[in-house]
């Protein structure tokens, strides 16, 4: 079980309010990702749920019980930290076993669970090493091992992959997703990387300055962002925004079109521009196009190889079904 409800939760440090009162519901077994730019309060929100920070007002309920004043150890949650936070003086076995020792489980059960976790995470042969003798990925797996042996109500991940290199990150991302499939335990995952959010989440919570901008499934956020911020934050490369006459044509203050919803052509199209930087990846080609009347270059994605380069004239046609319209406040116009 791991049903978490935040009711009017607020956090201030002195006079500074980091998280204005907010409500959030996390269903049992859900993989929820908190995403947002750095300093948006996503880690603070996670630490409030963990109990590592006290809420200034409001209540946190875990599985129906008011846990607002319950110490972290008693909340039945497990956390994986960005820095792994392994105990450097203990072997991998002792690290993983630590929560079980604290819970005073009998020795045989401790051993059984540690062996099981080690087998799941491919750590069996490293059990007698110390964290200092492991690679970054292995350390991360030990941190996850320490979390799963407790069989917690929910896992909390605080940017767990940001210290790993790109290749390892992709691998660990898959491992965590698989773990979730297998355990079906609630997971709350904090990241600033929207690709991680899109690929792993059942539900994404987009935060900015402590305020929840939108909650929804990855594709909901992609298809119908509630405002300009979410539209620009979700999706990679980010959405292009146009103002002025182009927007007025659609009865909006601003319109947004994703790079993948613009068709480039060397000869004909709705908008005309000139190729600035072109990125040829083989599988995709990206053009950064300078268009008259646009302050920012427009990004265009085309599948496969396209033979257009720096300085070439380019014509672009936005897909009419994928033009997002926003009003003066930046809110979506339905």
């Amino acid at each position: 079980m791991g049903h978490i409800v935040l009711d009017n939760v607020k956090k201030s440090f002195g006079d500074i309010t980091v998280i204005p009162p907010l409500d959030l519901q996390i269903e049992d077994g859900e993989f929820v990702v908190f995403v947002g730019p750095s300093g948006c309060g996503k880690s603070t929100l996670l630490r409030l749920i963990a109990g590592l920070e006290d809420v200034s007002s409001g209540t946190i309920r875990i599985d129906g019980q008011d846990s607002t004043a319950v110490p972290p150890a008693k909340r039945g949650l497990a956390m994986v930290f960005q820095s792994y936070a392994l105990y450097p003086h203990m072997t991998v076995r002792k690290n993983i076993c630590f929560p079980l020792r604290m819970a005073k489980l009998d020795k045989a059960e401790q051993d059984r669970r540690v062996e099981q976790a080690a087998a799941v995470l491919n750590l069996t042969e490293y059990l007698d090493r110390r964290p200092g003798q492991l690679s970054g990925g292995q350390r991360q797996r030990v941190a996850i091992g320490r979390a799963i042996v407790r069989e917690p109500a929910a896992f909390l991940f605080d940017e767990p992959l940001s210290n790993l290199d790109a290749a390892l990150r992709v691998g660990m991302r898959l491992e965590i997703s698989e773990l979730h499939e297998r355990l079906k335990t609630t997971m709350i995952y904090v990241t600033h990387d929207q690709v991680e959010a899109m690929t792993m989440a059942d539900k994404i919570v987009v935060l900015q300055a402590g305020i929840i901008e939108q909650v929804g499934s990855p594709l909901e956020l992609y298809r119908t962002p509630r405002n300009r911020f979410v539209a620009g934050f979700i999706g990679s490369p980010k959405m292009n925004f146009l103002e002025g006459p182009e927007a007025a044509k659609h009865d909006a203050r601003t319109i947004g079109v994703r790079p993948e919803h613009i068709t480039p052509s060397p000869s004909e199209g709705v908008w005309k521009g000139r190729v600035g930087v072109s990125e040829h990846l083989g599988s995709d080609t990206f053009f950064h196009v300078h268009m008259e009347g646009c302050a920012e270059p427009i990004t265009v994605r085309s599948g496969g190889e396209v033979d257009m380069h720096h300085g070439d004239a380019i014509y672009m046609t936005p897909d009419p079904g994928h033009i997002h319209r926003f009003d003066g406040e930046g809110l979506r116009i339905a």
Partner: protein
Amino acid sequence: MARTVTTQRKSLNTAIAWGIGLLIFFPVLWTILTSFKTEAEAIADPPVFLFFDWTLENYAVVQERSDYMRFLWNSVIIAGVSTLVGIVVAVPAAWSMAFVPSKRTKDVLLWMLSTKMLPAVGALYPIYLIFIELGLLDTRTGLVIVMMLINLPIIVWMLYTYFREIPGEILEAARMDGATLRSEIIHVLTPMAVPGIASTILLNFILAWNEAFWTLNLTAAQSGPLTAFIASYSSPEGLFYAKLSAASTMAIAPILILGWFSQKQLVRGLTFGAVK
């Protein structure tokens, strides 16, 4: 770019360093040499350096006249127990200041250190009276209490510095793993701080061992440690340099040997935080 140092420069630096080292060490060396001289040679003019009749007579006399082992034992008990009690008191104090600091933490730390700036003699009279009242005068218990209290600021400061180097996330992880405050300190913080705690213990043991002001003023025949043992040889009936030197050598030998074997730990302790 690495700075280039010429061979001559290196030799010169080495010579200067040795010169200063010997100058500092000379009084100790002289004490040790004098302890092997006769009383006449000890006050000879011009002084004799190495070429004299080496004798162990002073050591025999000193051992005969006073019970060295009793003083030694008192030193061990007073320095050892006061340091250990100090550590037990200081670990939680340093923990709270390092990991849950308040607005006043810095002030508290400075205030604690400021007690070391008070001349000890300023507190002698009240403490002496308290000791008479409580029957602690010339007892090891009394000295353990005083030593512990006067060294506590240093112990807390040193531990605080070590604890500050331990990432808070690890303690938070322990909290998430279900550790109570007590197990967090016993199973996670203390083992991680072992090198720091070891050098703190060592330094404070040495400080307590060498402390003379309080031991001389608060002890008499019963609980005097080695500092009192040395002082008992500077008697008003005339100074016996050779015997005084023998007593001094016997008093400093244990701590000198301890210091020699734990050099590495001590240097780390004294320079901790300066170089990572």
